[in-house]
């Protein structure tokens, strides 16, 4: 025991310093990497918006090119998230609160299997199995709900539509959301669950009173992770989709997403060409989209900060 308060165990203090310095540098490293990524994208995309021989800035032309892809990306991700998020939360709840406790671990493991499947395989599955299976569904939707703009166009006869891509993405992000939600749900303090049950809450009411409020930030985090994956997924979409121009209809061929466009275009893009720059520039655009989407999510989470779960 040291005699004076300012004399403290030197090694301990050093340990604290080193550790906190390490954590900060890890964070800074991430920021730096990201800054380099942005720099890389920005430097290489200049030609997409500035061409000497076309009279300088050609932002208009670029936007013309980019906006259908932006919409396609958002639509596919939206379909994925709308389909996957409720199911994923449901599955996570099933594992944490409904399944027989003895089985719940194994069941969680089974769902994690979905995450183990590489995206190429999802792509191949979506292209060769799911797409064809959905053709009659699209025909039906078109016949019966054709008055809605999303089901208006001629239904695809190969099933390779943005809707199929959205479903495949949904399946891909399902385990991500499930896994994050499940871990958080399990952490819900027993104390709070019991508080609700003791008031005579049914299981669902207990979940609403104790589990969801506690897990709110976690659920949103999980969804954002999934959304990030959906926005950035390349190979599966490239395989499943039959890309083309922007159409309002979700069940006809057409539409494309930014990552798919990059993956499909980049290999053949001549070095240093405007095309290459264009592809990198839409990468930057995707970056900005992700930025905006996450800003919104963070904003939603932060509004309830005062009422946070831990203590």
């Amino acid at each position: 025991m040291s005699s004076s308060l300012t004399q403290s165990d030197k090694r301990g203090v050093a340990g604290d310093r080193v550790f906190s310095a390490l954590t900060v540098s890890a964070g800074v490293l991430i920021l730096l990497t990201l800054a380099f990524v942005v720099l890389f994208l920005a430097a290489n995309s200049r030609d997409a918006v500035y061409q000497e021989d076309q009279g300088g800035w050609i932002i208009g032309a670029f936007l013309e090119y980019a906006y259908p892809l932006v919409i396609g990306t958002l639509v596919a991700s939206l379909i994925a998230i709308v389909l996957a998020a409720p199911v994923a939360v449901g599955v996570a709840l099933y594992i944490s609160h409904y399944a027989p406790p003895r089985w719940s671990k194994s069941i969680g493991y089974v769902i994690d299997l979905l995450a183990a499947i590489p995206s190429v395989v999802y792509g191949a599955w979506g292209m060769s199995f799911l797409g064809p299976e959905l053709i009659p569904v699209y025909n039906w939707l078109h016949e019966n709900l054709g008055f809605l703009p999303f089901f208006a166009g001629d239904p695809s006869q190969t099933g390779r539509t943005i809707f199929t891509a959205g479903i495949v993405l949904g399946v891909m992000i399902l385990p991500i959301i499930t896994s994050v939600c499940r871990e958080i749900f399990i952490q819900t303090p027993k104390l709070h669950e019991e508080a609700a049950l003791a008031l005579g809450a049914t299981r669902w009411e207990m979940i609403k009173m104790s589990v969801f409020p506690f897990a709110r930030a976690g659920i949103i985090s999980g969804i954002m992770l999934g959304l990030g994956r959906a926005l950035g997924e390349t190979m599966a979409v490239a395989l499943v989709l039959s890309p083309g121009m922007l159409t309002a209809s979700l069940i006809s061929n057409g539409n494309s997403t930014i990552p798919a466009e990059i993956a499909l275009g980049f290999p053949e893009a001549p070095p240093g060409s405007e095309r290459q720059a264009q592809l990198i520039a839409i990468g930057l655009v995707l970056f900005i989209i992700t930025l905006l989407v996450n800003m919104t999510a963070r904003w939603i989470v932060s509004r309830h900060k005062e009422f946070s779960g831990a203590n």
Partner: protein
Amino acid sequence: MTQTPTPTSVQSPSGPPQLSEGNRRRSSLTQNTLPSWLWMALLAAAVVIGAALSALLGFNLATWFIFTAVIYVASSYFITRTRVNRRRATDALWTNLIYLAFALALMPLVSVIWSVSSVGIQGLTEPGFLNSEMQGVTGLVDEQSQTEGTPVLGGIRHAMIGSLLITLAATAISVPIGLMTSIYLVEYSRGGPLSRAITFFVDVMTGIPSIVAGLFAGAAMAWFLSVFSSVTGLLSTQRSTLGITAAIALSVLMVPVVVRTTEEMLRVVPNELREASYALGVRKWRTILKVVLPTAISGIASGVTLAIARVIGETAPILVTAGFVVNTNWNLFQGWMTALPVYIFRQFQNPTSPNFSDPSEQRAWAAALVLILIVMGLNLFARLIATLFAPKQAGR
């Protein structure tokens, strides 16, 4: 009379009576209980009616399932609602929906696994599949396999080794960085601008398309090597297509997943545990390492596995950063490497023999199966670690 209630029986679907606001008098705890055979009967009826309705539209499994589910969920809701009360009906509804969600999630899983293994198992059992490489396997060999029925040659040894090495390297890079960052965010930062910037940009990182990560890593490595060789004069002939470049590309994709999941897991560790440790005169870093991390370990393990699963299946970034070879390379820092997904993708897309593509397809599915098995193995391993450190169960 004995009864061994388990948490599942916390809410059995059978509903007892309920107090209406004005009249709190109940005569029995089980009054109005709906007998459990009712649900069996209801399910059976739903199955039959579902089948009938589906047959009207031209029978298929999907519509059968949908009709059955809708009929069962809706009718059990209405029965509970009319015979018992609204709260119990709501509870039953959600219970059914949650079970349904689970069933729904299983469907693609089963379907994908079936797609993979129906061809993949055959490929896996070919002699030497796990143990040989693609050296010497040309279109002629495949043509022979397909037309004359000789065994499908060629294996994935090189690709498995490549994938494992690259993924391990990526994990070794990104898990410490990701974990440290999330520790910074949860334990050290007090909501300052740095932490907000990190949180924010990590979010943004989740959406980087994988190919962009690959291009970036390739460019970064090339730049680094040129600077390095111009400064030191060493490694001037070193090229940037390396296993380690791929690992860096994958790290860019992994880090945000690790940060985001571990951040959430650390946040739910109760503060009173940290306080208990501080009060014992334990330094913060030790508290974090020995109290906070073990408490959150299970979630962290899940997060890391998730991150690994995310990147181990990546194709494009590995192809552009690590190349594609037909034999084994154990060195991450020298020469090209093949990864399983690249192998799978190439076998699908550019069969070794374009006109006799069955052997290639078979190899692709089998390799996919192996990849899934590898991720499962890693997952199991992570869970093992997690249970070793996880909070001991029990307690209220």
